[in-house]
């Protein structure tokens, strides 16, 4: 099973992870973080393959993908 973690307080809402996730299982939050951005979160972890593409596109290096 895949463990996906986002450091939401460091997310700047660029949307790269959301855009490039092959499974399209990421989306923006409704609320804003303290930086004033809508941050990325997982809507459907089940479908995650752990491919790491989201992390490989994240300009803030705040996504970790682990198999557990």
């Amino acid at each position: 099973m895949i463990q996906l973690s986002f450091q939401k307080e460091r997310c700047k809402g660029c949307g790269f992870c959301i855009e490039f996730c092959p499974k399209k299982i990421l989306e923006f939050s409704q609320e804003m973080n303290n930086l004033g951005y809508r941050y990325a979160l997982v809507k459907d972890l089940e479908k995650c393959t752990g491919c790491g593409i989201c992390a490989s596109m994240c300009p803030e290096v705040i996504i970790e993908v682990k198999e557990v």
Partner: protein
Amino acid sequence: MAKGYVKPTTLTDVPWHFCPGCNHGIIHRLCAEVVEEMGLQSQTIGVGSVGCGVFSYNYFNFDGIGPSHGRAPAVATGVKRVHPDKLVFTYQGDGDLAAIGTTEMVHSAVRGENITIIFVNNSLYGMTGGQMAPTTLLGQKTSTTPKGRTREQAGYPMKVCEMLATMDGAAYIARTAVFNPAQVNKTKKAIRKAFETQMAGLGFSMVEILSACPTNWGMNPLQALKHVEENMTAVYPLGEYKVPTDPSSAGSF
């Protein structure tokens, strides 16, 4: 592709100052990953520059130097002559490298100085608020080309890879981008080749990376990636412009 992703130990935990979607972040990460994968964290000296990458020495978790604007290749030369066995690379923007730093760049290639330049080309001066750079595209609007860059007034986009590839001292010269996952992987491979070229003592190496500056382009992050893919690559073709000829060159070629 290897599953999962963990942040490399070659990056500190300092929060980054980049704007949303700035490609500097991706490029920082790739440099750090390659250094870690090559096992060179304690053998690397990174030479920053003045531009939006100015804080690289705070973000990289290895020795770092903050030189004056444009002079990184000269500073790196000084470092390398003292530590010939260490990995020494510069991280420079297009204003820093291709404008004020032209002489230092060209002559580190002429000398075949055994260093690597990571060249982040976002076609303008980001840190100072988006003025024209030598790399600005024709027609591109910047704060100093309000009607778009014209040949008459400011000439033509400067093609650094094409220029340096003519030099005998240059061993590896490539241009890549990071506008999608595939390109990100290619960029990482190119950085690795460059670093391996240096560690094999084959001479000067440079990787030019086309990079998005959503803020000064007045685009959102995804539009900015598209702009790189569609407009920048047309003027700055991606690919390897020079590869080491020496057979003794590292395995990965």
